[in-house]
């Protein structure tokens, strides 16, 4: 990470865009206005408009992205605060996480393989149900493309928000544990935001599921890549 003029300009620009995007979201509260989406679109537009290569932008972007690693470590704190909920429902939670993570890794790998995508793209799709910071680091570790992995994580999250409620209803998944674990294990933070609408117990379940799925997904992704490729 260099301390160049571009680093200062683009890190400040990223933070400022995020602050504005957050403000817009809090003002209108519409799902498609999710700040990650609007901030990304705005920044991409600026880069294209001013003909700035992504590499130059990342001189500043790297400074912002440097917080990802510590943030993943920090996820231990909310999980620890939910330890009683986890202890009380250990077996059903564990069963749901294991089933979900394996189903996600296997289906993602097989579908991309059947359609003949390159190994790099298969490994990029693999961590899509993990929370973004973990998914990106997993993609890096196993040989995928982290920025593209982040895009698929967003697609997974929006699938959870927009289609998840219909699927849950269709399958008669109607308990806080079933809904929360389903949303958190498949659609991470965005799914957890949706779980909040069902109630606080759904939300806690979803938050626990998001973290546990991220950890298990990080452990199993290299294994899945090795077994299925």
């Amino acid at each position, binding site marked *: 990470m260099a301390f160049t003029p571009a680093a200062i300009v683009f890190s400040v620009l*990223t933070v400022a865009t*995020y602050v504005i995007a957050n403000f817009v979201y809090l003002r209108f509260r519409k799902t498609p206005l999710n700040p*990650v989406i609007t901030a990304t679109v705005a*920044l991409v537009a600026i*880069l*294209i408009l001013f003909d700035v290569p992504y590499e130059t932008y990342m001189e500043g972007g790297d400074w*912002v992205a440097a*917080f*990802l*690693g*510590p*943030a*993943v*470590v*920090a*996820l*231990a*704190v909310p999980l*620890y605060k939910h330890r009683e909920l986890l202890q009380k429902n250990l077996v*059903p*939670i564990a069963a*749901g*996480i294991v*089933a*979900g993570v394996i189903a*996600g890794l296997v*289906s*993602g790998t097989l*579908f*991309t393989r059947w*359609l003949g*995508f390159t190994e790099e793209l298969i490994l990029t*799709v693999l961590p*899509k149900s993990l929370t*973004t*910071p973990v998914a990106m680091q997993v993609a890096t*570790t196993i040989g995928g493309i982290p*920025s*593209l992995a*982040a*895009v*698929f994580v967003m697609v*997974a999250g929006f*699938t959870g928000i927009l289609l*998840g409620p219909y*699927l*849950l209803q269709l399958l008669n998944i109607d*308990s806080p*544990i*079933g*809904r929360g*674990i*389903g949303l*958190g294990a*498949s*659609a991470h*933070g965005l799914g957890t935001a949706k779980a909040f609408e069902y109630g606080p117990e759904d939300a806690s379940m979803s938050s626990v*599921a998001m973290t546990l799925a991220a950890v298990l997904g*990080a452990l199993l992704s*290299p294994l899945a890549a090795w077994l299925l490729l």
Partner: protein
Amino acid sequence: MKIVRIVLQLLVLYGFLLIGEAIQTLLNLPMPGSIIGFLLLFSALLLKIYPLEWIDAGATFLLSFLSLYFIPATVGVVDYGPLFSGKGVLLLPIVIISTLITMAAAGFASQSIANRSAAQKEES
């Protein structure tokens, strides 16, 4: 001095990350160092080696802006426009269907096992 406490706790989080990354390099593990750091911090909290009050404010502060830190990465999609104008657009339905399979498996497994153990408790 809340701000000093937050900054010190952020440094502790960074310390856990560095230890995690060192372990990853040392043992050549195929998982991110941050996950190892996460597991170390979670264990330290569970075993009461490290008290919650010494990390809570910093972690909560850091996580309240979580989505900011991955925006530089999502902006990277700018380099992959051509991918999505070709065959790559098929990756989107793949991700959508695979996400729904994941949700069905996780939700169904946890709910049915929770119901079964609740029924067993009633019988006994």
